[in-house]
């Protein structure tokens, strides 16, 4: 498609070629692998004369005044070069790859490739190698710190858990804030389970983006604002990320990439090592007392005497400082990808196969992934281009670690083991009869080894994403394009609470099968045509049909008839559940591009979406109530093309855009639905109401209108470049599953009530401070500031609950006048003079519930550096986030259990005005319950995110077979340069959907290892 566009431009431009010109031929090859590059733009500087290279990388062009002409050779992903013709007739060019090229062709909405210069909005492209060298299991994590205005954070749920990608802040109050991922023009599902409940204790089961193999990704293009994403209409509100997978090109290449990394936990806990297990300052005196003390570290001074433990064995009462390190193991991930790629006349083919084998730091947990990718593009008949893509993924995760609450959660239990206990004495977690060996009489305090080894939380996914695109371009430039794509997966999720679990001796099992598909069929027709000599108008129209279905079959049961045998036929009590969600969206869209003299550009788009989810069963609603229109307009003024700004300014452009985009509704929300419980009571069916939120037949899709302006500037031959953006995005008609008063019969109601605003700036500075023959330093600094404000909720409603911490005294809420996702906690109660007030029992009393700041960072920044010296390259990435808050359940429980260092002072005895106080334990556990403000932390941090050191083997060493080989040392998440949280990772979080709460997750890990890339 890109080639055809360029070809068209070339054809048009060649018409004006002068007769006195000289013909120049040449070949463009890649510096990376020496392969010819087809489709490279070769333009004579300052003119509109140009061409593009053929499949063998060759070009022919006529230079009007050969002596003075300068060729500008540019191609997506490569550094642009300028070469003086100087009367030469043959010029061969070697292009170097460059991840941050400014003057380039970029993929935009609907897969349309356009000259970056012409875009009236901010777009950032991230190249594939950014995902492959120092890699993450979830490829979205590799975006952290790399794109201005994109706030990436991962769930601390172990391998394959979800990643949150927030583009330009929180644009929706209760709907997803995750971007739409579009792979090769086809939307892909990125569903993740939305852990969001006070009582949740289950694993994060991953998201959709995590299934992709980074080695197959050519690039990711982040469409940040509405103007960029407007053609995605009702799916564009949170931004769009376009993923282009690799396709076959160049001469035949076999590439093998092998990556081996190890990971270790970073134990951030700094618990007190003074007092051991026990209660009220007393060491356990019997096995029963040890069990009753359980997780409590309110015992006596660690004096080294023998004290009886949970198992009746007496052991020295001393501090065990390395319980976390003893529990977690060294994890590893070994990834191998082999790919075959070859370009040929009119197309190319690429195949790849990948194997990933991960051993988690959590014992008995790990992930396996196999990915197969096929890309074929060809021109079977002249003018017809066909592109076929297939991506097949097998994703198999064993024992996903649990998050949040303690029952069955190894992370929670391992973290809070009293310091006087040696975690290894709890091994293997079972008694001789196979039942749980408890360390506490609180049955919900599961033995961590039992939780890790005996509980089952497995997920298996088979996923296929495929697309077929055909495009026919007539001689007059008119094109017709059709595309059909399908993303489908089958999930199998198995959860077992084993027989003999203290809190559920009979055990239970749940087997869930999810079948999902989304089909998209779209067409696009258009034609660029010239008006006069200076104006090119390119109108096009298209349509999209989207069908989506999710079927969910759950079989579960409890109380195994034959203990320790875990299959769904074994439980005595069985039940099932079945859900089937269907929806369809029909869309019709059009756009028109105006390009004036290659410096002034204007694009207007409109998309109309019709939603099945707005239809009311049993009612004939006129079509006009089922649809919504999404318009946008944007323009770009490349002023450096017409104004001479002096020698130091290489490039300059101003841009502006306006857009309206939306967020759709879910199926079956317009009427009340009744159901039948799968169980019977003594033969009687049990009725249910399926909606847990009051349905609303008047619901309409939410909207966001956005204005953005920006500039892109290049100085000193583009060795210093600047991209600035300012935006103001207002979300209205927010669909809210609003907490209703339960007295209405329902805890939630579907409403179109909210408004919120994001205002912000983004800056990207790219500089090449040093560029010599052997040494080059590229440095990129990106930063963004986003100011979010909840403008409106329902009439009379000042706040909207989002999530509740397990402790019950920390909340996240949307509060009018504040940024979304406010951390709410109880302050001290104070008298008129500001003195802390106490309860009758001497514990500080609970004050008001207050806002303490948003869970979402205001500032995000990343500083990336690449150094290359001869065969070596070295890079590091430092990133930081500032201004976000977190409510730490970990520190709450550290107070409750007496592990927090701040619980030390009053243990020895209570004095002064607190004479009513009975014990330090009562004081601190009461304090923790009453004054939850203690557990609100500033989540700001600066982290050394990534270090890479690579060595490309000299060609002389490789012989004929191997084209190139690069060995790299890679490290990820190496250490915190600064953080402000006690005992926890400031990035810890258990919900992509309701951020700001942490508890019971996998500790942060540091990853380091090697990457070997060999091309044959």
């Amino acid at each position, binding site marked *: 498609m890109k080639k055809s566009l360029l070809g068209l431009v070339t054809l048009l431009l060649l018409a004006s070629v002068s007769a006195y010109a000289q013909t120049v031929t040449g070949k463009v090859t890649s510096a990376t692998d020496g392969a010819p590059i087809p489709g490279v733009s070769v333009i004579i500087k300052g003119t509109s004369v140009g061409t593009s290279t053929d499949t063998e990388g060759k070009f022919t062009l006529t230079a009007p005044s050969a002596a003075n002409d300068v060729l500008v050779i540019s191609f997506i992903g490569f550094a642009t070069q300028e070469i003086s013709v100087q009367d030469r007739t043959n010029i061969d060019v070697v292009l170097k790859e460059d991840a941050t090229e400014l003057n380039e062709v970029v993929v935009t909405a609907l897969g349309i490739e356009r000259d970056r210069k012409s875009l009236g909005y901010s777009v950032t492209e991230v190249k594939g190698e950014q995902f492959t060298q120092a890699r993450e299991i979830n490829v979205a994590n590799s975006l952290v710190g790399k794109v201005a205005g994109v706030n990436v954070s991962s769930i601390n749920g172990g391998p394959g858990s979800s990643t949150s990608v927030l583009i330009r802040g929180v644009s929706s109050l209760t709907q997803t804030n995750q971007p739409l991922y579009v792979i090769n023009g086809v939307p892909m599902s990125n569903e993740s389970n939305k852990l969001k409940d006070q009582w949740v204790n289950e694993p994060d089961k991953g998201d959709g983006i995590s299934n992709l193999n980074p080695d197959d990704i050519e690039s990711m293009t982040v469409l940040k604002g509405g103007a960029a994403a407007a053609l995605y209409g009702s799916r564009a509100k949170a931004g769009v990320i376009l993923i282009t997978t690799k396709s076959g090109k160049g001469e035949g290449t076999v590439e093998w990439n092998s990556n081996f990394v190890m990971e270790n936990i970073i134990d951030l806990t700094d618990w007190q090592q003074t007092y051991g297990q026990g209660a009220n300052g007393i060491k356990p005196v019997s096995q029963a007392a040890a069990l009753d003390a359980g997780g409590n570290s309110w015992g006596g001074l660690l004096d080294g005497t023998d004290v009886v433990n949970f198992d009746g064995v007496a052991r020295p009462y001393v501090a065990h400082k390395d319980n976390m390190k003893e529990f977690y193991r060294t994890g590893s991930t070994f990834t191998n990808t082999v790919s075959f790629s070859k370009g040929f006349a009119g197309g190319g083919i690429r195949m790849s196969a990948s194997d990933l084998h991960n051993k988690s730091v959590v014992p008995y947990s790990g992930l396996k992934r196999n990915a197969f990718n096929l890309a074929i593009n060809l021109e079977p008949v002249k003018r017809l281009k066909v592109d076929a893509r297939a991506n097949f993924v097998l994703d198999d995760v064993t024992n996903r670690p649990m998050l949040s609450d303690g029952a069955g959660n190894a992370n929670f239990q391992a973290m809070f083991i009293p310091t006087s206990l040696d975690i290894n004495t709890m091994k293997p977690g079972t008694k001789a009869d196979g039942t749980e060996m408890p360390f506490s009489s609180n049955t919900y305090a599961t033995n961590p080894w039992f939780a890790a080894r005996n509980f089952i939380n497995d997920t298996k996914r088979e996923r296929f994403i495929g697309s077929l695109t055909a495009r026919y371009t007539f001689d007059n430039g008119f094109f017709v394009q059709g595309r059909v794509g399908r993303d489908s997966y089958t999930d199998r999720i198995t959860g077992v609470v084993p027989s003999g679990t203290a809190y559920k001796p009979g055990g239970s099992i749940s087997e869930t099968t999810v079948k999902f598909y989304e089909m998209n069929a779209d067409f696009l027709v258009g034609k660029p045509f010239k008006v006069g000599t200076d104006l090119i108008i390119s109108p096009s129209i298209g349509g999209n049909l989207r069908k989506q279905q999710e079927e969910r079959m759950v079989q579960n049961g409890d109380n195994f008839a034959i203990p320790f045998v875990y299959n769904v036929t074994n439980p005595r009590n069985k039940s099932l559940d079945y859900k089937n969600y269907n929806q369809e969206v029909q869309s019709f869209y059009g756009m028109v591009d105006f390009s004036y003299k290659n410096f002034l550009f204007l694009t207007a788009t409109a998309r109309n979406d019709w939603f099945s989810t707005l239809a009311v069963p049993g009612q004939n609603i006129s079509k006009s109530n089922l649809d919504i229109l999404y318009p946008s307009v944007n323009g770009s003024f490349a002023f450096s093309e017409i104004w001479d700004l002096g020698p130091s300014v290489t490039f300059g452009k101003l841009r502006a855009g306006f857009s309206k985009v939306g967020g759709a509704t879910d199926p079956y929300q317009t009427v009340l639905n009744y159901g039948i419980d799968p169980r019977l009571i003594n033969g009687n069916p049990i009725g249910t109401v399926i909606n847990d939120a009051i349905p609303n037949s008047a619901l309409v899709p939410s909207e966001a209108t956005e204005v953005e302006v920006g500039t892109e500037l290049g100085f000193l031959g583009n060795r210093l470049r600047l991209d600035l953006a300012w935006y103001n995005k207002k979300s209205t008609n927010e669909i809210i599953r609003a907490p209703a008063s339960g007295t209405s019969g329902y*805890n939630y109601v579907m409403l179109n009530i909210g408004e919120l605003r994001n205002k912000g700036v983004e800056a990207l500075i790219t500089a090449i401070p040093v560029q010599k023959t052997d040494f080059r330093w590229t440095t990129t600094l990106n930063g963004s500031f986003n100011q979010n404000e909840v403008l409106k909720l329902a009439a009379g409603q000042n706040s909207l609950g989002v999530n509740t911490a397990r402790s019950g005294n920390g909340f996240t809420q949307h509060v009018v006048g504040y940024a979304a996702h406010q951390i709410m906690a109880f302050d001290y109660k104070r008298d008129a003079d500001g003195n802390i007030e106490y309860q009758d029992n001497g514990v500080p009393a609970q004050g008001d519930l207050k806002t303490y700041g948003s869970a979402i960072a205001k500032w995000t920044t990343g500083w990336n550096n690449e150094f290359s010296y001869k065969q070596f390259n070295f890079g590091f990435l430092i990133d930081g986030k500032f201004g976000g808050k977190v409510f730490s359940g970990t520190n709450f429980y550290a107070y409750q259990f007496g592990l927090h260092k701040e619980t030390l002072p009053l243990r020895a005895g209570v004095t002064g005005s607190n004479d009513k106080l009975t014990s330090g334990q009562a004081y601190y556990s009461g304090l923790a319950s009453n004054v939850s403000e203690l557990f609100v932390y500033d989540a700001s941090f600066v982290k050394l995110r990534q270090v890479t050191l690579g060595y490309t083997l000299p060609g002389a060493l490789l012989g004929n077979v191997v084209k190139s080989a690069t060995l790299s040392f890679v490290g990820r998440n190496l250490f915190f340069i600064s953080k402000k949280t006690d005992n926890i990772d400031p990035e810890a979080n258990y919900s992509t959907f309701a951020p700001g709460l942490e508890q019971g997750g996998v500790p942060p890990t540091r990853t380091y290892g090697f990457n070997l890339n060999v091309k044959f």
Partner: protein
Amino acid sequence: MLNNMKHKYLSYIALAVAGAFVTTGCTDDFAKINTDPVAYGAGNYEPAYLLTTAQLNYTGSPDNAYETWRSNLIYASTMMQQLAAVTSYWAGDKYLLNTGYAGAYWERAYTEQLKFAIELIQLTKDKEEHKNLYQAGRLMRAMILGRITDMYGDMPYFDAGLGYYTQKYFLAYDTQDKVYGDLLKEIEEATVALDDSAGKIEGDLFYGGEIGQWRKFGYTLLLRTAMRLTKVEPETAKAYVAKAVGKTFESNADNAVVVHDPSGSWTTQNRNSVVLLKGPENVQVKLSKTYVDFMKSNNDPRLAVIAVTNPTYAEDGTALGGNANPASQKGLPNGFDIDGQNPLPDAIGGYSSLSPSLLSLAGPTFVLTYAESELLLADAAQRWSVGGNAEEHYNAGTKAGITYFEKYPGVGDLDAAADDYVAAHPYDAANGLKQINTQFWAATLLNGYEAWINWRRSGFPELTPVNYPGNATNGTIPRRFPYPLTEANNNPVNYKVAHDAVRGGDLLTGRVWWDTEN
């Protein structure tokens, strides 16, 4: 040339536009696509199944017995010294405030009980074929709302549960006097409107749909509701009691009871058993010393049925047996813990647990009993000489309060033993109210809600409060649940009005309207 191209181009566009409109013409299917294939609409549903749900969930939440655990067991039953626990989070045993637990009843009753009664009413209203089912729905609604107001006081009442229909999501609170005025009216009207000729009530777990029994249930509920006003509006109470007299339950066969089904997990199992069979409750929750001592000192035949020491459990957690010898029984004093501020001096193992019969997952939950009915009539007769002979009602109620235990699995005939007990404990009018309401307390084991409400109403039994260090009530037995924090969060404006209006403060020590201090 250009013109020609334009022309051709425009015709392509026209073609595509036409194509697009053909596509969008298919929205006719959208109502069908947006119909949940795994659900029913008002048009094709069987409303009787909603009666089943309302009745079942009135015995407690299908979600791990959520409010049964917190409100009935952790709070009410221990405050009433029927049960006792050394478990640290059993806040009611020690008069500690856990706002989440205290709010649990409200949170679940509206969304898991009332919701289904309301939907039942909506689907059967003005439908001749559902005439009796509709009245059953009204009675369920009144009973459900009545227990909420008895726990909390002022409450959203008139619009409660109707969010879908009224589009009111943040409800104002109605004062309890207005609530009671309407409850009495509703119960009376619905009971009177039951029609013997209109056929049985489908989906009925209480009576298999028998209209005669429903009518007796209606009048007994009217009696109970009226008697709540004993202290605050005795004249109203008397007037309604008079309407119910002679039409109430006549034997234990009339008891409104849900017999549970172990096969459906938490959804259908006995709520109290779900909680008490699990650890640590199975070890740390016992019969209260007050209750066991009352049984022992009165040679009560119930003790042999309800209590065991040294209980044994099967591998899957079900209770198997233990020492049921009444002489061996020892009740656990309230207000102790194991390792906290008031440690139990001896081992927990020696105290009496509930017997395997009472812990059966298939066991019954008593919603409204003949024993309660007779004892309330005795109270009314003693207090106001309304409704017959206090002694006769007392004798009948006391006996039924023993024999109703026969409904529990594995419990034998208690008829003769009950007669002996009644004979040995003759009615003494001078002590009548104390006797009557102490028997009421003895006959509401595992129904802590009702025991607590009746204690607040009557002042009996005479309980000695515990004084756990740091308790939230200054050593007095709580009289009310504070409103839940979810209301403070989700319905703040209306909540504040009600919160500020509670007599004695929105605390465990506050009082509902009918619970006057005289």
